[in-house]
């Protein structure tokens, strides 16, 4: 007999363990996951035949990941994470990220209330907030005129003005309008996203007694 889901079961278990151990110091978490992975490998070599049920039994004997991590916390003297209450710092960060990007971003990264992925989104979507958008718009506008060739005579009067656009101008205008709206709305959307992603009173993970 074979265990068609062996890898899936084991990877799932290790992923749950890793997630449960999220608040342990990194070195401890890696050590725990590595030890448990080695344990599973060792346990598998001892079985005469391997079925999904055999794998499930190995994982059952190891214990629920949350229970193992709770034990680890107690054994290693790691305190469960304290709930963090967002305050003035976070409100300021959300307001300043779009309107005064450098300061907003600094506050954003100082605050422990966001996951680093959200901090990255807050920093880069768009880079520079409205400051960045304005610079971007300027560059775009100055770049657009590059498509036209204007010929002037000696007196400075325009004799020919060819624009090398292949798309209809109304479509271009529409695209420009949509793009402008999106770009100008983006900093606000990001600020809204940051406000939603705030870990309002996030509860610490329960510790099993």
């Amino acid at each position, binding site marked *: 007999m074979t265990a068609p889901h062996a890898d899936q079961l084991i990877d799932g278990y290790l992923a749950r363990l890793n997630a449960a151990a999220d608040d342990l110091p990194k070195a401890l978490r890696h*050590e725990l996951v590595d*030890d448990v992975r*080695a*344990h599973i490998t*060792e346990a598998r070599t001892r079985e005469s035949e391997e079925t999904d049920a055999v794998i499930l039994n190995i994982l059952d004997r190891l214990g629920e990941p949350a229970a*193992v991590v709770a034990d*680890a916390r107690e*054994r*290693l003297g790691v305190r469960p994470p304290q709930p963090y209450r967002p305050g003035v710092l976070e409100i300021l960060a959300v307001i300043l990220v779009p309107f005064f990007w450098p300061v907003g971003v600094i506050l954003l990264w100082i605050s422990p209330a966001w996951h680093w992925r959200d901090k990255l989104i807050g920093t880069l979507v768009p880079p520079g907030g409205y400051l960045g958008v304005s610079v971007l718009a300027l560059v775009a506008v100055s770049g657009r005129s590059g498509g036209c060739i204007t010929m002037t005579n000696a007196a400075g009067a325009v004799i020919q003005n060819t624009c090398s656009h292949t798309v209809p101008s109304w479509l271009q205008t529409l695209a420009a309008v949509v793009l402008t709206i999106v770009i100008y709305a983006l900093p606000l959307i990001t600020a809204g996203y940051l406000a939603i992603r705030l870990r309002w009173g996030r509860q610490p993970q329960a510790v099993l007694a």
Partner: protein
Amino acid sequence: MRVPADGLVSQMRRGALEYCVMALVQQTPRYAFEMIEALGQTGMLTTEGTLYPLLSRLRRDGLVKTEWRESTDGPPRRYYELTAEGRRALTAFRVEWVGFRAAVDGILQEAKKS
């Protein structure tokens, strides 16, 4: 069935487990799975995964030291061995435990007779 002493007994088992593990590696170095097999029959370790944080703790406290060794039938294994400090801690626990056990036994038996 839950008995009133449930919490106390599990806490005692938890505390004593550290010293049982140390006793297991007192004479010969062992790897974790061997310890689990030895403890498995005693009922001292119900959740096998919890042995690993315990071993980490003993190592961090300098009570055991570890060494990787090649294995003939699988990947290398980490062997645990008692340090001099671990030996001292275990000896101290032995003395305490024997006294504690004798005292509790004595009182329990005395109470039963009367």
